[in-house]
């Protein structure tokens, strides 16, 4: 596998298509709440012209971009602003060094391993105000940022002991569960497995490691590339056996589909094969129902919920397939959020200097939730769920959990 020079990516070259209409800046959630960030047009295409390898320019403000990707989606002229910012940030970190705090946030896996082993004791420090205060002062993780709790039993352990409903399913699926499902929310993984098996899939979980996105967004491109390569090596044997990769975290699946090639610059047949064969769980289900002309029936669930499609999900270019399937549940009513971002953007909102920005971004979404007073908020991304739940006191679940619940008994 080869790695191409990121300064010559299609991404970085797209700056010349900018006509300065400012549509991106009007939609950028960060520029909307702080003037520390001049907005995507300014730090993206405008600044890009000055970022020459021969004349390194210093624009620290790019660190305030939270990577939500909204700018790239709304730009009518194909400028890949968010991708451009990610690359610029990595170049900067490379030069200035990655802070310890970013290194910690970039490594959910080792942290998860220790935490799960020692749960529930490992949850204590995160709940104790004095310790949180010390954490903020020493490493810069904001004391109010909500953290999930470790569960004692990992998802992988559960999977190995569960009796599969379907050993010879028609479709072979390898489930990319990601770190959060394994260490914090095994319930999401259980729901995914239950739904897939119900619809006739044979599910495997393959060896896998963190997708690398946390490292990538904390500026450690080299380390993220190592994780990416390792995942590719572990998943390729399954692809050769005609499995497809299905994930429930829209950010992990986006890394596999898009970031490995377009942000980390990996090239070659394997990374392309992985990208082509990776699907979000709802994208996969929607395709499955169409392909097999299935008309699944669900149990009645009398409930009013609120659905927030996370920003990472929109970059999949697949629409909001969860709504298509939720619509089939009798009795269920839902309202869809028009807030472009919940604020937290992975690990961005946990950082002391950014917490308030993320909080302020979230206000739009929190007010919409308040107006509709749903029983639960559905969201496909784990960090968004924790952030939303932590700030609204409304329970937040993955939409697949509701689907699992609605399967006929």
């Amino acid at each position, binding site marked *: 596998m080869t790695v191409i020079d990121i300064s010559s990516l299609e991404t970085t070259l797209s700056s010349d298509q900018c006509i300065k*209409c*400012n*549509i991106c*800046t*009007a*939609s950028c959630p960060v520029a*909307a*709440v702080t*003037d*520390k960030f*001049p*907005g995507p047009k300014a730090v993206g295409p405008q600044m890009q012209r000055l970022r020459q390898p021969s004349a390194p320019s210093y624009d620290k403000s790019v660190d305030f971009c939270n990577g939500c990707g909204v700018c*790239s*989606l*709304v*730009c*009518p*002229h*194909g400028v890949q602003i968010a991708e451009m910012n990610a690359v610029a940030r990595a170049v900067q970190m490379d030069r200035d060094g990655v802070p310890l705090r970013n290194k910690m946030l970039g490594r959910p896996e080792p942290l998860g391993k220790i935490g799960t082993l020692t749960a529930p004791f490992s949850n204590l420090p995160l709940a104790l105000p004095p310790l949180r205060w010390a954490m903020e002062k020493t490493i810069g993780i904001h004391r109010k940022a909500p953290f999930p709790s470790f569960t004692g039993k990992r998802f992988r352990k559960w999977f190995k002991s569960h009796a599969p409903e379907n050993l010879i399913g028609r479709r072979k699926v390898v489930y990319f569960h990601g770190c959060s499902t394994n260490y914090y929310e095994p319930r999401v993984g259980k729901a995914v497995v239950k739904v897939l098996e119900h619809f006739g899939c044979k599910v495997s979980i393959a060896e896998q490691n963190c997708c690398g996105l946390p490292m990538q967004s904390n500026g450690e491109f080299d380390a993220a590339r190592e994780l990416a390569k390792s995942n590719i090596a572990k998943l390729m044997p399954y692809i050769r056996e005609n499995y497809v990769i299905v994930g429930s975290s829209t950010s992990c699946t*986006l890394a596999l*589909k*898009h970031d490995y*090639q*377009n942000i980390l610059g990996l090239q070659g047949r394997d990374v*392309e094969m992985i*990208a*082509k064969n*990776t699907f979000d769980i709802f994208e996969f289900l929607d395709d499955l129902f*169409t392909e097999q002309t299935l*008309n699944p029936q669900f149990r009645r669930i009398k409930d009013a919920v609120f659905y927030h499609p996370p920003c990472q999900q*929109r*970059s*999949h*270019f*697949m*629409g*909001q*397939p969860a*709504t*298509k399937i*939720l*619509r*089939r549940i009798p009795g269920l009513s*839902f*309202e*869809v959020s*028009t807030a472009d971002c919940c604020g937290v953007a992975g690990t961005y909102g946990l950082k002391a200097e950014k917490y308030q920005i993320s909080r302020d971004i979230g*206000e*739009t979404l929190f*007010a*919409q939730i308040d107006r509709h007073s749903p029983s639960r908020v559905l969201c496909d991304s784990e960090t968004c769920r924790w952030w939303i739940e932590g700030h609204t006191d409304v329970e937040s679940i993955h939409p697949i959990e509701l689907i699992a619940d609605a399967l006929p008994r």
Partner: protein
Amino acid sequence: MADGKLLIVGAGLSGLFAGILAARADLDVTIVARGQGNLMLGTGTIDVHGYQGKARLEVPALGALDDDHPYHKLSDYALREAIELLREICRRRGNPMIGNLEKNLLLPTALGTSRPTTLAPISMVAGSLRDESPLWIARLNGFRDFFPQLMHNRLPQNIHIVDLALTAKEFRRDAYTTDLARMLDNFHKREQITNAWRKSILDYRKKTGEAVTRLGLPAILGLENPRVVLADVEDALECHVFEIPTLPPSVPGMRLYNLLRAEFLTLGGQLVLGPSVKGKISKYQRGSAVMKTANKTEKAIEADAILLASGGFGHHGLVANVDGSVTESVFDLPVDYLTDRHAWTAESYLDAHPYAKFGLRTNAQMQPINQNNKLQADNIWACGSILAGADRLSEGSREGISLSTAFTAVENIIQALS
């Protein structure tokens, strides 16, 4: 459940409105658009027919338009019903629209002209120029994109300028209308701002002895809940308040975009922003389409029907090529245009330009046909600004055409699929 799949290309007013109508009829709808549509750039009003030549129309005069104008292809109820449906959605989603087809409203523009329109958000109507009483226009200190002096100089009405403090906080960069709107959305900041404004108004009264009866602000009265913001500002200032649309990005346009998007998504419609759509037409006259997805591969978009709402030249629906030809960007459908390149434009920039009428020719079902009236594909329809025969800017007819042609296209699509 759905009994057919519809692909709509474009997320402007016509694309979103068509998407809502089709999703209501239980079609399985996907909208794919290269980026956010024209609503972000518009004024948030619905113009049906405002001008005849240079004259401002009191009542839309559709009968006076050329024979090949899109309005003449419609049933007699399409426009009226489309307007009523939009009005219902806007009311339910907290942005009521005022006006009707019987009489145009006449509203001031930021450039100091008067503009006829059919529907305007409730936050604009107190600025009516049919009302002869004086107007006060706010000059917000530190906000660059609004010019009350220009309005004062150009409008014949009796206009006064009032200085208002912009905000408590200084901006380290230019403040955009969206910044101010978001501050007003927030209850606490709104209170601070309206208190400061109230003080300015009282000072003004003390100094001049004049009581402000109606006050014009740039369009910044909140993105999320304009009705509440308007009521709070009017309460605090004890006068009528109205918005004047500004340079893009437009707050009233974004409101309309947001509420139509929410309506569409809540009906289970799929919205994909980002990729461009490529299509082809088979020899059996069937159109099919593909798009690039996140993994950079081309994916076929399943569709029984395809509706082009991809806009005119400004939005890549139509493309003017260097060789002087004009092409349609998705299917390369035949476009009505003048082959003489010199005949495209008028003498003066502000005149009506012939190129504005270029576009797709359709039959009464809104299906593209060529110059010999031959149908191009059985499953392709078109609506909105891509259609030939209208000069939307000079006529003041953009949104009326978008809504009514979207309505008619969807009506025909539903019939064709059932």
